[in-house]
């Protein structure tokens, strides 16, 4: 049964090539745009190198000190000493890593300046995150403790500074007039992954970070790894218990210190919204995204409905014959929906191909540094789901309209 529906659908597609082109063009471009947007989303907060275990990680990257009587608040990134004092001793997490945000430094190759984004990290950083090492190894906990001047580079910096990406282990790189020995080279990390991104990673003990600094604001962040994804709520509960106990810097002026440990998505949304409320704003954002997506799909769907209605009326004699031989409205609606979903799936496949081309163009244009936007199984599944949704959305009304045709009129080829 299904097979014959598909056969009919295929024949109909071949009959009026121009209409087929309009339908497929609309579907495939709509899906392509949605897929590219989804690929950006997945690229920013999905499980990718180095944050492969994203479902077990929590990120602590902002602190807020609110003033009494709603007199505003101070927001900012957190100091090293705050994280060492309050986050490091947490007991529920499996591992905790503290690092600085990357900052720009200058290295010189001959007379040419090379911008090197430098990030100071502890040894746990390499256990919590999974980098792809081209060669060498990360630095260990004991190397961090002893303040060894060792560094891990990304491929781009390695190529720019040494002219090669292999055989550089043991060589020295000098940036901001400090010399480090290279012990590892990793694949480039996309700039959108701002929690782990850098050109060069070195032990935090070689920086000027002071564990005894009384200030709460600085330029550091913490990544917390839970034992299992199910453990995250327990870790967050312990974290908020600890933060509730943190004394305010000045009891006369300040009301409370707010720090949150959120998933990659939640902390990224917080970061971009500059948000320090208990609600991380993910639900509101997702609601808006869903609304915009539906609105965006509405116009191509209306277009497809219009084209479909025209095409169905063209087939009125076929419908008349089927009705005269006893086909019910339900059967006809089902047949038409199957045909339409077949069409949208075809468009979906085309959309996937187009999306991969567009992503490749974005990657190779170098517009966003170090992006590696690719289609992966998650995006593929998303694309198929979207085309199903699209197919049903645009098929229901024409199918309903078709099933309403009177058999006698339909056989005459008339219009309703």
């Amino acid at each position, binding site marked *: 049964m299904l097979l014959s529906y598909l056969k009919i659908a295929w024949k109909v597609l071949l009959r009026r090539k121009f209409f087929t082109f*309009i339908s497929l063009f609309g579907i495939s471009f*709509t899906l392509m745009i949605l897929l590219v947007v989804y690929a950006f989303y997945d690229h920013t907060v999905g499980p990718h190198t180095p944050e492969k275990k994203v479902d077990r990680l929590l990120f602590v990257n902002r602190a807020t000190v609110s003033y009494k009587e709603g007199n505003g608040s101070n927001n900012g990134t957190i100091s090293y000493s705050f994280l060492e004092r309050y986050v490091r001793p947490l007991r529920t997490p499996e591992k905790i890593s503290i690092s600085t945000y990357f900052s720009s430094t200058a290295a010189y190759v001959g007379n040419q300046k090379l911008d090197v984004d430098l990030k100071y990290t502890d040894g746990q950083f390499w256990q919590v995150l999974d980098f792809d090492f081209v060669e060498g190894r990360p630095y260990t906990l004991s190397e961090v403790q002893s303040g060894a001047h060792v560094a891990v580079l990304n491929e781009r910096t390695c190529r720019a500074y040494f002219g090669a990406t292999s055989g550089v282990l043991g060589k020295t790189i000098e940036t901001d007039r400090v010399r480090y020995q290279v012990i590892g080279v990793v694949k480039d990390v996309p700039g959108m992954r701002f929690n782990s991104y850098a050109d060069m990673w070195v032990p935090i003990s070689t920086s000027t970070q002071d564990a005894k600094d009384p200030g709460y604001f600085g330029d550091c962040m913490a990544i917390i790894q839970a034992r299992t994804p199910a453990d995250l709520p327990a870790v967050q509960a312990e974290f908020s218990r600890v933060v509730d106990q943190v004394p305010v810097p000045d009891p006369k002026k300040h009301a409370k210190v707010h720090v949150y440990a959120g998933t990659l998505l939640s902390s990224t949304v917080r970061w971009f919204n500059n948000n320090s409320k208990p609600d991380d704003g993910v639900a509101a954002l997702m609601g808006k995204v869903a609304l915009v997506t539906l609105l965006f799909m509405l116009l191509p769907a209306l277009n497809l409905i219009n084209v479909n209605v025209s095409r169905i009326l063209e087939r009125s004699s076929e419908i008349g014959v089927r009705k005269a031989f006893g086909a019910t409205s339900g059967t006809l609606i089902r047949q038409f929906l199957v045909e339409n979903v077949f069409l949208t799936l075809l468009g979906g496949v085309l959309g996937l191909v187009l999306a991969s081309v567009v992503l490749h163009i974005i990657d190779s244009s170098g517009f966003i540094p170090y992006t590696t936007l690719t289609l992966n199984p998650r995006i593929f599944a998303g694309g198929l789901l979207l085309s199903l949704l699209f197919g049903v959305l645009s098929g229901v009304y024409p199918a309903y309209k078709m099933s309403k045709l009177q058999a006698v009129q339909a056989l005459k080829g008339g219009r309703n």
Partner: protein
Amino acid sequence: MIRHLFTLIWNRKRANFLLVAEIFFAFVVLFVLGSLLVDSYRKYTAPLGYSYEYVWQVDMDPNGQPISRQDATFERLIQHLKSVPGVRSVASTRSNTPFSFSDSSTEFKAGSKSTGSDIYSAGDDMQDVLSLELAEGRWFNRHDEAAARPPLVISQEARQALFADGPAVGKIVRTMDDKEFQIVGVLASSYRGRGEFQELEPAIFQRSESLVDPKDSANFDRPRLLIRVQPTATAELEQRMTKEIAAVTGGWKTTVTTLPEQRTTRMKFALAPMGGMALVCGFLIFNVALGLFGVLWYNISQRRAEIGLRRAIGATGSRISAQFLGEVMVVTTFGLAFGLLVAAQFPLLGVMGIRLPVYLASMGLATVLIYVLTAICALYPSQLAASVRPAVALREE
């Protein structure tokens, strides 16, 4: 004739409903995008207020030097850099340098009037560094050190907001915590530190203060400079500057970027979403045009009998095509009427915070575009209709 067309469309309102809906949505999409683009264009063509070419930004990190010594070191460094060949002028600044992603604002009041304003901090040489033009008064100088009230230079927008058309120079303004400032100068235009796509908003300059707050040593700032270099400056000067800064200050770390570089980054951030939106909308509109074309073509081929009859009783080809074109225009008008109703809510409810003339301009633009689009889509099908032979069409029936 036109009334007749309206009756024709009204009689087939159910069949035309979807077309009307499609035109309505296409109009709304074009209107929203048009408003954003027109507004951005208006901002882009407004004066920036300063020149950024040959200006370098130097961010420094005292690298653990005790806070008590930083101010003296910074002062010594500024004097030294002025003597470096290739450097024209040097002025200290805060983190909200031109095109940076950092901003700072305060509320000021003068008499009964008050305004929120961006607040910038600038050294005595900033007028030369950024080529700022003054309309009234003067820029800061070292005599301001001893002034009773800290001096301010304000932009035209700030002048309008605080003094309207009255005199401004010499007036006293207060912040919300009643700290008093005296205005010594007014810029010739606006000053838009966030770049070309910033709204024309009030901007106020205060004279650079010491890095460390004398009353509260926990409140301190990082040393930052803007430097105007000679047009011949190269990367060599940059390297030399980094070395000299380290030597003069005893190990401060330096990052040098140029304002044109910063501007490129800022532009990328502003243009990428705009370009993306324009591409997506372009695709949507193209898609609608294709669909419209298909549907009209089909509808006309369905009405061959009617056309044949009209031709047989004496209608000319051009009158036939005029009828079909007219019908499409009437359908478009219905869609646009709904669309304009919705578009009118935008300025009434203040949805996007854009000025009324921009809304009106984009309404006009979107209306014209939609009419042109539908006319193009209807042109070929209506010509097909005109070429129907009455004898053939009637025999088919």
